[in-house]
């Protein structure tokens, strides 16, 4: 039995409407799951970057990679799990507080280098950035106070060191006979 593990995949896609639907539709259509997803424009505004996490065995992830590459709107795909990289996610956590527990909350936030971004008489919002383990740890610590709601951004990832994920120079193909006609 192949072992299942978590993978983090980044995809450079044409920044056009419907492209996210092509990618997510591929996952649902072929029965692969997406556990988190983030999308935004890159330095080159014609390109968007989708970062998603999925679970499966190595063969499934290889298939995912091949199928993603088959989509015409997909320019490049990398599996960050294969190399040294940094991955981060941001979570906003709304916690129930009162006058007595507020100080405890500040203490916990301080330990995790989290920020308190909103304060009210009965609740507090904490912003924390980190990998899965760190976000899980702060949630464990905050749970006794009463977590009311959580919003997570999905992951972003970059390779460590000089390695980049970029489109590279496009290889245009000359349309010979049209040129002749023109």
């Amino acid at each position, binding site marked *: 039995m192949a072992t299942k593990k978590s993978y983090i995949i980044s995809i450079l896609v044409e920044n056009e409407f419907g492209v996210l639907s092509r990618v997510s539709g591929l996952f649902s259509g072929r029965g692969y799951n997406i556990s988190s997803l983030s999308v935004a424009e890159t330095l080159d505004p014609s390109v968007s970057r989708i970062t998603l996490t999925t679970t499966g065995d190595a063969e499934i992830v290889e298939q995912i990679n091949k199928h993603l590459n088959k989509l015409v709107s997909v320019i490049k795909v990398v599996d960050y799990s294969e190399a040294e990289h940094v991955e981060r996610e941001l979570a906003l956590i709304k916690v129930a507080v009162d006058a007595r527990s507020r100080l405890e909350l500040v203490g916990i936030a301080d330990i995790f280098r989290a920020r308190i971004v909103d304060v009210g008489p009965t609740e507090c919002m904490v912003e924390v950035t980190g990998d899965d383990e760190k976000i899980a740890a702060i949630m464990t610590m905050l749970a006794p106070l009463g977590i009311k709601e959580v919003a997570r951004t999905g992951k972003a990832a970059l390779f460590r060191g000089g390695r980049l994920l970029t489109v590279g120079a*496009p*290889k245009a193909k000359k349309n010979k006979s*049209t040129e002749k*006609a023109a």
Partner: protein
Amino acid sequence: MTESAAAEKARQARDADSDEASAPSTSKESIGRQLSGAQIILECLLAEGVDTVFGYPGGTILPTYDSLYDSPLNHILVRHEQGAVHMAEGYARLSGKPGVVVVTSGPGATNTVTGIADANMDSIPLVVLCGQVPTSLIGNDAFQEADIVGITRPCTKHNILVQDVRDLPRVLHEAFFIAGSGRPGPVLIDLPKDVQTDICEYRPAKELAIRGYRPTVKGNRRQVSRALDILEKAERPLLYVGGGVQWGDASDELRLFAEKLQAPVTTTLMGLGTFPASDPLAVGMLGMHGGYWANMAVQNCDALFCVAARFDDRVTGDTERFACEARGRIIHADIDPSSISKNVRCDVPIVGDVGNILGMFNKLAADRPGLTGTKRIAAWRAQIADWKAERPLGYEKTRDGQILPLAVFDELHDLTEGDAIISTDVGQHQMWTAQMYGFEKPRSLLTSGGLGTMGIGLPAGIGAAFVEKERPVVVISGDGSIQMNIQELSTAVQYKVPVKVIVLNNGHLGMVRQWQDMFYEKRFSQVYFDSLPNFPALAEAYGAKGMHVEKIEELRSALQEMLDHEGPVLLNVTIPSEEGVFPMVPAGMAVDEMLFA
């Protein structure tokens, strides 16, 4: 021209344009003129060398139909949009060029979906042009609006909504390039009405720069050498060949290589004809309804070379127990990397155009005299021959004076000298065709292998007849399938398409009945037509010739009369309802666990 010379010529032609985007030419006088979107669309079609399009007009595509009125393009008016797509598929399957469809928005577009999904599964190049409501109305639930780009996203190779008339030349040429290159497939273009009426200066697309789309054409030489190392040692090698050989124009290279190696060749349903059925090395079709000897061969081979097939479940049965003797020595050449190791783990993957790859095999094989297995493989070939003698396809031609399918295929093969183009529907008649006709040339069998679309046979045959004028086009259908698109007889009559339709009529949905007979305790649920039309009379009502035959002694003359008639003919052949397709591998079993009649 000798075979090797033909292969060499094909190789040169391939090398000359390999890796290059398509190069459309356009009429000089249109360039720089102010044209409407609709006129630009037609300019682009002509530039791509399109001669025939299949379609049906309607509200949002009217501007394009108005331009078509003055165009030299040959437009075939169908009776249902599904028929248009299947005709374009037949056209493409035979010509190798993308088939073109023009339909309106909403129901016109949604009616194309089955055909598009069929083309996607069987790698058929299509360009489908759909009208769409004006951009200002998109999303308003306007009359005849459907999100066809959303609907067809999972069943096209690519699709796109055009929002600016100036994008049209680029989008159209990209569509033809994407449809026809790499692993071919359908591309849909959604054309809002205002994009068709807007006017701009016509500038042909100069560059096709699709940074996300660069199919690999040339195979990896080192992988080819590794594959040859395996085949050189193999004592029981088997070539397993699929429909991709047609799209790679690789039949000559395939035959050269099989002869060099002296290895047996089995084909999938889609691969029938890519290797001649009468060749001494031919093992015929494998899989669910493959020959006993072909399935035994794949289960016992010690090296399996898959050429442009995709280890479909109808071929492999239980993948865990498929070709176990060859594990560690499975070679797979395919243009689509995602087909490799998808169902069965492959040991030597070779991605690229199979014509190019097989050409490389033949070049490198020239330096390997030890490859030819005349002696090494002799015992293996004798074993396969023994299996064939042990369990031949056990069909009879007649019983109690009735016509059995084998008689139809034997007589048809004889009368057409095995040279007909056969278009089938889906069901028992399709499997009988595959088992019995004996295909000698590539692109001779047009059939729905992946999606299994009932109703494709007649329109695909009509589409093929627009390409092929010399060889007869024969549609083999059943009483169930033919009724799914029988309205296209009217199209055949209108355009005087000499298509010959044989309906093998057993009064039942035969294949479903067979499954119920074998696996559902003969509980024949909803497989009997209590009311069938009088098919010959129906054909006559459409203006075609209708014929009927049920006695074995009248069969040959009826087939002869059908083939001799100039226009479209429907021949209704009554066959007994209990006749089954055998051998059969029940779904999910290993392919050597066959059931026999």
